[in-house]
């Protein structure tokens, strides 16, 4: 991840005066224009929530028409922590902050609040406790509310509003910051078109109106007061945010002053950057502009003050930006400075004229020139704003590749000491990366050590490996390529390679769900063809075309009985297989239209859009109830009585918990609370089912293994973590899984592993996930939780997002039981799963490093990298289960 260069220490009024005075003597100093300022920051306030013609925020709209408002564009990532930093410092935080959003530390750099506290002014804050973690030193009074508990949207705002009467009557502040989280929570829960949004907007409207009236009352003889209304980011049509779409990045920025403007007010047409608030607010409050600011002064806001003041403010903004440019790229500012100095001379000349001689045309001319300098400086800075730590990146990629190659070799000879060296060097690299403040120079000692150890590993591999690797790969391919399964085996390999190659294109990464739907449908059809092929080959026992020396548990043994009596059952079997495949394909087709995901076709209507309409609640409840019953019936074939009852209770509790939150309809259950109690009961049922298989008294059916019970337990958990409309998907998956369970797969275990992995990936996307951070369903982490605790929430969130792949991997383990694999087969399976996951990761990581200056690197490629990393972790944990199962329980 790139590392930024930042100023340390804050700028002082004295230095500002000195610098501006030296360039343009006699320039007017910093001047405070507003007495009290209130900043109302409404989280997830999209621009059209305020500016659309039929907005519920009518009073604010009236105020806006008499004052100034703009549409501001927020930078990515459109998540709260980076946006707060941007609003206070004017800098453009990077992608790493998305991960750090979960734990914020004190911000040491220059920012508006530091300037305020340095000037001895009183800053009061009520709202999201992220501010407190970042800026608590600068607040005179504060109270925070936690922002991660997304199911509550009334208490969070009431906790802020209840302070207002006291604060506004006393007026004992210079800057009052109010951060309202309710709208953001509503967005995550229900989306921007839900009926919960207008009342919330009206609530916000009333708050704004109250504040404005109080500010008018508080205004005495002196300076006017200012009310700023803005949003930190918008929200997408699904209600989440994090990406770079239009609705996620456009927020309103309204400056409502108690002193009415002489010029016409209203909404300005052109778009500005969100960070432009920083220099504007600094200048209006008479403070030095924070040193890391990249915003432009908003001319519309300083228009009232007269040409002299305007030019002085512009001068200070330009000086600050040029200083930042010099700090960032020492040589690059020389060209801009020449132009700047000529503009300063013009400015001095203008100032030296008497007020009568000063022409407004010349002032306008100087203004334009300053703006040009500003634009040149900011574009030069942003072009190279983030410096990539290239040595570390390359070392990481080499490390990844080495790990992958070591894995490939691990089949034959365990090169233990080489692995140790590799592990140690990786740990060292990780140690360096966790303090990512400093950029490693190419000749630094750390880099050399790390590269040397990697080279050692690689050379050992190269010496040993040439012949053995070829043999291994050939043997592996041969093992997945025999009998009727050669068609499928070949396609599985080809499909994996195709998918890996497709990751190199940004459109295919965005629409990855299409790749997986395509590949999984094709493999179903090919499997059907293979099955028919095998059955027909079986009809001619003289065709000894396949070796029975390799394990052929999977092929039906040649019927010894009469050929004629087989004809009837033969066509029956074919019909059965065709029916199975038809059911699989039908379920897949329905799952595909369930949720639209990706980017290009996201706006098209899908089944879920229709199901979650308020009118269809009863229909949804009936549908969910039917799916839960179906799941129970399909699973009870494999469970004992006790386990069936436990599962039934668990599923019922899930329904009950969703009915408590109002998403479903259950008679006799009032819509009261968050459904925590039934959710916890459900957890208990899951745990009991899981544990019950170990109790000695249980006599489960002979063909049922441990994994089947685990799968049933997981299904209940899966249903619990899904949104109500997605539980029908779980029913579809159960149907598919029971069909696959029943039919014989003409695939080797490792090919079957890949087959199930593909099903898992298709399920991942049909749930509504995509390769963008905005589709992560944050509400799923809070099921059954009273409060925010980092670890359980993160754990449940991971389980909920990757629920599809986990389900199918467990289904694979259950199926593996029936295939009676040998020791070597298990090695192959583990190896295949690892290669499948690693291949895409390794190729993609190398690709992203080479394409780090691509246009779409922030919006498309980096989120996918994060998802791949998480994917790797999940599959690693699942493989651990695989290894444990077979080495502990079976031996």
């Amino acid at each position, binding site marked *: 991840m790139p590392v930024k260069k930042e100023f340390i220490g804050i700028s002082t009024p004295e230095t500002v005066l000195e610098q501006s005075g030296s360039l343009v003597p006699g320039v007017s100093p910093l001047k405070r224009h507003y007495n009290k300022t209130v900043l109302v920051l409404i989280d997830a306030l999209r621009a059209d929530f305020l500016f659309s013609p039929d907005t519920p925020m009518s009073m604010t709209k009236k105020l806006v028409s008499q004052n100034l408002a703009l549409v501001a564009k927020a930078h990515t990532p459109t998540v709260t922590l980076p946006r707060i930093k941007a609003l206070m410092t004017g800098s453009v935080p990077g992608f790493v902050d998305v991960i750090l959003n979960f734990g914020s530390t004190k911000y040491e750099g220059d920012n508006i609040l530091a300037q305020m506290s340095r000037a001895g002014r009183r800053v009061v804050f009520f709202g999201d406790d992220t501010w407190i973690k970042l800026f608590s030193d600068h607040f005179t009074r504060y109270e925070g509310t936690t922002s991660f508990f997304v199911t509550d949207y009334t208490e969070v705002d009431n906790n802020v509003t209840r302070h207002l009467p006291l604060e506004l009557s006393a007026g004992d502040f210079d800057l009052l910051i109010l951060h309202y989280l309710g709208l953001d929570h509503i967005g995550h829960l229900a989306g921007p078109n839900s009926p919960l949004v207008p009342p919330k907007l009206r609530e916000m409207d009333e708050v704004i109106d109250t504040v404005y009236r109080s500010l008018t009352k508080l205004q005495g003889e002196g300076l006017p007061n200012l009310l700023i209304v803005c949003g930190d980011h918008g929200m997408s049509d699904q209600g989440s945010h994090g990406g770079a779409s239009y609705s996620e990045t456009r927020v309103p920025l309204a400056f409502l002053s108690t002193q009415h403007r002489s010029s016409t007010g209203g909404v300005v047409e052109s778009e500005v950057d969100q960070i432009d608030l920083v220099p504007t607010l600094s200048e209006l409050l008479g403070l030095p502009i924070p040193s890391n600011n990249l915003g432009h002064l908003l001319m519309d806001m300083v228009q009232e003050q007269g040409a002299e003041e305007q030019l002085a403010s512009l001068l200070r903004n330009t000086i600050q930006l040029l200083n930042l440019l010099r700090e960032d790229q020492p040589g690059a500012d020389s060209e801009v400075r020449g132009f700047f100095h000529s503009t300063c001379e013009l400015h001095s000349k203008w100032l030296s004229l008497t007020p009568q001689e000063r022409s407004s045309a010349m002032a306008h001319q100087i203004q334009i020139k300053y703006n040009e300098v500003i634009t040149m400086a900011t574009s030069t800075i942003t072009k190279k704003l983030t410096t990539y730590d290239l040595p570390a990146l390359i070392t990481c990629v080499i490390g990844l590749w080495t790990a992958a190659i070591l894995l490939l070799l691990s089949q034959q000879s365990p090169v233990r000491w080489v692995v140790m060296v590799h592990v140690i060097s990786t740990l060292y690299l990780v140690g360096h990366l966790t303090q990512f403040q400093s950029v490693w120079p190419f000749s630094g000692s750390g880099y050399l050590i790390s590269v040397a150890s990697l080279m050692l590993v690689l050379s050992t591999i190269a010496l040993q490996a040439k012949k053995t690797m070829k043999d291994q790969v050939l043997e592996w391919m041969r093992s997945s390529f025999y009998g009727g399964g050669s068609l499928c085996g070949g396609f599985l390999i080809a499909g994996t390679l195709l998918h890996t190659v497709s990751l190199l294109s940004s*459109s*295919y990464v965005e629409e990855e769900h299409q*790749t997986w739907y*395509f590949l999984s449908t094709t493999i179903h059809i090919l499997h059907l*063809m293979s099955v028919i*092929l095998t059955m*027909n080959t079986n009809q001619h026992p003289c065709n000894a075309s396949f070796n029975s020396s390799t394990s052929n548990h999977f092929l039906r043994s040649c019927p010894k009985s009469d050929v004629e009596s087989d004809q009837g059952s033969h066509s029956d079997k074919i019909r059965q297989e065709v029916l199975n495949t038809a059911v699989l394909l039908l379920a897949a087709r329905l799952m595909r239209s369930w949720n639209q995901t*990706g980017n*290009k076709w996201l706006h098209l209507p899908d089944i879920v859009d229709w199901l979650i309409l308020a009118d269809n609640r009863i229909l949804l409840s009936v549908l969910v109830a039917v799916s839960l019953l179906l799941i129970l019936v399909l699973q009870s074939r494999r469970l004992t009585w006790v386990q069936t009852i436990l599962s039934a209770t668990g599923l019922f509790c899930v329904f009950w918990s969703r009915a408590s939150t109002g998403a479903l309809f259950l008679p006799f259950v009032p819509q009261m609370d968050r459904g925590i109690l039934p959710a916890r009961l459900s957890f208990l049922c899951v745990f009991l089912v899981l544990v019950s298989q170990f109790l000695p008294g249980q006599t489960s059916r002979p063909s049922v293994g441990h994994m089947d019970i685990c799968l049933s337990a997981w299904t209940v958990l899966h249903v619990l973590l899904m949104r109500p409309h997605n539980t029908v998907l779980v029913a579809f998956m159960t149907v598919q899984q029971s069909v696959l369970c029943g039919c014989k797969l003409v695939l080797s275990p490792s090919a079957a592993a890949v087959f199930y992995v593909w099903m898992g990936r298709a399920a991942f996307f049909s749930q509504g996930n995509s390769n963008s951070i905005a589709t992560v369903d944050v509400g799923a982490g809070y099921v059954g939780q009273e409060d925010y605790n980092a670890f359980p929430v993160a754990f449940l969130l991971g389980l909920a997002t990757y629920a599809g792949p986990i389900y199918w991997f467990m289904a694979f383990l259950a199926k593996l039981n029936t295939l009676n694999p040998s020791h070597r087969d298990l090695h192959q399976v583990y190896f295949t799963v690892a290669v499948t996951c690693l291949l895409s990761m390794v190729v993609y990581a190398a690709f992203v490093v080479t394409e780090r200056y691509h246009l779409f690197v922030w919006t498309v490629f980096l989120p996918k990298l994060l998802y791949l990393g998480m994917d790797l972790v999940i599959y690693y944990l699942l493989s651990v289960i695989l290894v444990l199962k077979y080495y502990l329980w079976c031996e």
Partner: protein
Amino acid sequence: NISQTFHFGALLASTAVFPGLCILGLNVSNWIRVFSQNGADLGPESVIQISAVSSIVGAWVGAFPIPLDWDRDWQEWPITCMVGNLLGYMTGLVISAIHLCVRYNQLRKHKVT
């Protein structure tokens, strides 16, 4: 969307299934013999086997350009698949023609000697 899928299905049926119906008739064992047991006689049967498989493969490959973000008119469903289908069918005919030539030559050589 339904009418487009229907038209695509009609085209695919006419290139992959219809010639087979003409040559092999409705006899299921014939179909099984030609397509899943690789027992096509040289002549019309081999032609339809190769051309049917190629047209289906062509239609499959034709789906690749659809998710790309070039924003062209022809990236709508099912235009590229139909084009792929027809191209596959043509390539299949060409390949089967070459296959026929090669095999006939081989047969003739064997007859002579």
